[in-house]
């Protein structure tokens, strides 16, 4: 293949730019897998003690929907149950970020044009991005396998865990490489690559919880995340699935390079449409909502689907033995007091709240993209005051996240009405539970606003903070972290709703923290240069 000259220098440049992102993400993933495995092993010193909760886990479709099925009745399987699939999703996200960053984002911002004019082959940027993504996936998978062995898990199973992650991670290197060819914008690439990830996750969830003889079980096999799951580390250890993953990886890469060969630099394969000659936007708020429209629609659709899945699974959960061990285990795995169904809802709603916070952060951090892209300047040199411009982003972020949680609660309530027989009560309970998470979600929005106002160069750190909050909530107890540390996450202070008690005082404190952060951020923005260097 020609057009590859300059791949190595480009790879070096890309690796330099990602010299923090990749190692930190890899180490965090290894730490979470190995750390939580070690803590679980410490919790259940012998296999017999682990077996009782395992049986119930094996039978619980709700947990399988989120974390995938458990691979075997072994302590090692229990120790990695929560981290294999979720960790792989994060690995896929890392692969996606790396590949997108060095392909479509560069091209959209015109930097590739600059390079393209030099002695750099046509295919070199894509090749460099793919190589870097591949190295990131392989290194993370390898370190994770080594980490799992180091904390005393089965060797073969740990290698299979690494293989499972390679299968899933490399597939997303390929998926993102293709997605980057389809549209002209980095945002479009995000839509295709992340949409495919969400679809793959949902397909395997539906396949995993389907009845044994149902044809729906095939869905898992159609999802790349399902292939990784079917490697079944610490269980069947199906190493041959590596071949499937590599085949998909190779096929996707060939497709990406073929598509790239058929398009112009800066263009996408999908045609761009023309727009109206006259516009009806007349305010900065209108502009902001218009720019975020696609993102908002996508998120609301996703939350309707999520609500439907969660609401309809509740019936399955209830049919499941309501033994004290299960309840105890579920509580350990996250969730709170109340019946199993309530615990299930609370768990799902809290995970959804973290996802909603991601939307909130993305709406606020848009301001930074607008600023560095030079578009904020254009708007702020008209009669639009900075305070209003920033305030609108924050308010839209808060309103959109509230809308998402209400949407989730209402849809889940409607689906759950079949089980409870009282639609109004179901909807009310679950909507209330959804709304009860907002204080924590808004703290995340506040954190992003503070960073943008006071330390604009570090606006992106808001994402790291959200991931840290999520990890503390999901794995803090498992890792045996002290309560003070776990308590740093606002999500740790959420009431276990439905079923538990609403803690009004805590909610007020969280909202006050959120409002304080926003006020501080806006005050900082008013004082600083724009664009800040």
């Amino acid at each position: 293949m020609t057009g590859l000259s300059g791949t190595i220098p480009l790879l070096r440049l890309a690796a330099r730019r990602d010299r923090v992102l990749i190692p930190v993400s890899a180490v965090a993933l290894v730490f979470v897998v190995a750390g939580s495995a070690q803590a679980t092993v410490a919790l259940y010193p012998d296999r017999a003690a682990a077996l009782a909760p395992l049986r119930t886990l094996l039978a619980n479709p709700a947990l399988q929907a989120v974390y995938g099925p458990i691979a075997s009745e072994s302590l090692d399987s229990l120790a990695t149950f929560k981290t294999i699939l979720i960790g792989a999703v994060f690995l896929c996200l890392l692969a996606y970020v790396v590949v997108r960053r060095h392909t479509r984002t560069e091209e959209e911002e015109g930097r590739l044009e600059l390079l393209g004019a030099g002695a750099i082959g046509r295919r070199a940027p894509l090749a460099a991005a793919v190589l870097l993504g591949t190295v990131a996936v392989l290194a993370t998978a390898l370190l994770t396998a080594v980490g799992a062995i180091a904390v005393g898990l089965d060797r073969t199973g740990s290698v299979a865990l690494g293989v499972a992650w390679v299968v899933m991670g490399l597939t997303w290197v390929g998926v993102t490489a293709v997605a980057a060819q389809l549209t002209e914008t980095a945002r479009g690439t995000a839509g295709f690559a992340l949409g495919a990830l969400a679809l793959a996750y949902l397909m395997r969830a539906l396949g995993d919880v389907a009845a044994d003889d149902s044809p729906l079980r095939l869905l898992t096999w159609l999802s790349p995340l399902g292939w990784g799951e079917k490697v079944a580390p610490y269980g069947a250890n199906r190493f041959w699935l590596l071949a499937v993953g590599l085949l998909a990886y190779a096929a996707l890469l060939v497709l990406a390079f073929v598509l790239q060969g058929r398009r112009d630099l800066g263009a996408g394969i999908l045609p761009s449409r023309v727009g109206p000659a006259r516009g009806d936007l007349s305010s900065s708020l209108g502009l902001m909502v218009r720019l975020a429209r696609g993102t908002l629609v996508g998120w609301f659709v996703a939350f309707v689907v999520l609500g439907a899945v969660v609401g309809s699974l509740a019936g399955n959960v209830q049919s499941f033995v309501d033994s004290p061990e299960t309840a105890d285990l579920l509580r350990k795995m996250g969730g709170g007091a109340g019946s199993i169904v309530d615990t299930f809802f609370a768990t799902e709603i809290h995970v959804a709240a973290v996802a909603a916070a991601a939307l909130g952060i993305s709406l606020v951090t848009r301001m930074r993209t607008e600023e560095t892209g030079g578009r904020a300047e254009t708007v702020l040199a008209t009669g639009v005051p900075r305070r209003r411009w920033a305030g609108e982003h924050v308010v839209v972020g808060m309103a959109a996240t509230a809308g998402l949680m209400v949407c989730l609660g209402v849809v889940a309530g409607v689906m759950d009405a079949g089980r409870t027989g009282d639609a109004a009560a179901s909807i009310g309970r679950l909507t209330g539970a959804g709304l009860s998470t907002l204080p924590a979600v808004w703290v995340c929005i506040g954190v992003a606003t503070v960073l943008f106002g006071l330390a604009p160069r570090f606006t992106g750190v808001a994402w790291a903070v959200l991931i840290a909050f999520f990890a503390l909530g999901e794995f803090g107890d498992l890792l045996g972290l002290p309560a003070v540390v776990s308590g740093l996450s606002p999500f740790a202070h959420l009431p276990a709703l439905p079923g538990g008690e609403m803690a009004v005082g805590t909610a007020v404190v969280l909202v006050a923290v959120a409002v304080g952060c926003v006020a501080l951020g806006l005050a900082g923005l008013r004082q600083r240069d724009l664009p800040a260097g």
Partner: protein
Amino acid sequence: MTSSIQVVDLHKAFGRTTALAGLDLEVETGQIHGFLGPNGSGKSTTIRVLLGLMRADSGTLSLLGGDPWRDAETLHRRLSYVPGDVALWPNLSGGEVIDLLGKLRGGLDEKRRADMLERFDLDPTKKGRTYSKGNRQKVALVAALSSDVELLILDEPTSGLDPLMEAVFRDAVREFRDGGGTVLLSSHILDEVESLCDRVSIIREGRNVETGTLAQLRHLARTTVHAGLERRVTEADLAGLAGVADLVVTDTDLRCTVETARLGALLERLGEYGISTLTSAPPTLEELFLEQYRTPEVAGPR
């Protein structure tokens, strides 16, 4: 004559980089003021401070009679700004952006909008990401020129325009001025400044080196003289003359440069030797500009 923009002793640093080190700028109402300087000399920074986007470290500023930092919003309704590197929203059409910016500035003149679109030959239905650099600039220029404002602040607005569009731009800016508007035009295209501007400020490394009308600036610069004389002359004969340099004499042929203000004295002296042919070229803005930057240090202490 009133001033639309007044800047005195403006300082601005970014960390350890000093962008502006005591800049002065005065733009008279109803004039086109050229703001000339090489890359990195502080033009964009001055403009951003004037727009209240950046805060001055020290110095006095007045924009349309107000304080650009404090009164940013009210002042912004009275001006249009075209940034040096126009960035558009990838999925908004040019027409949508023009209408939006017009409304945010507080009004758009429909007739002028249509007229400008036609003169700049701009297709308003294309999406932002499909425009070339020149076309993005045209979108911003059409939006700026068809808004109802009294001041245009243009930061190197024509770097992506072809010569035909450059001519359209010049006409449109002149019309705006003739209608009573004021223009601050930052540029490094000397020809553009020379043909458009009533007054010019030349800056370098964040401070002024010259300000005035082109005629005044020319006066400060050197004129090239080439004379054929009837009698022989030697370099020693002309030694007493101030302001003459680059002197090359061969028999009756003389070439030199002279400070424009001292041209008369030179010609008077040459008259004594009988002038048979004479060409004298006034400095172009380019020579003026280059002259300012040829010496590493500007007059005055740093």
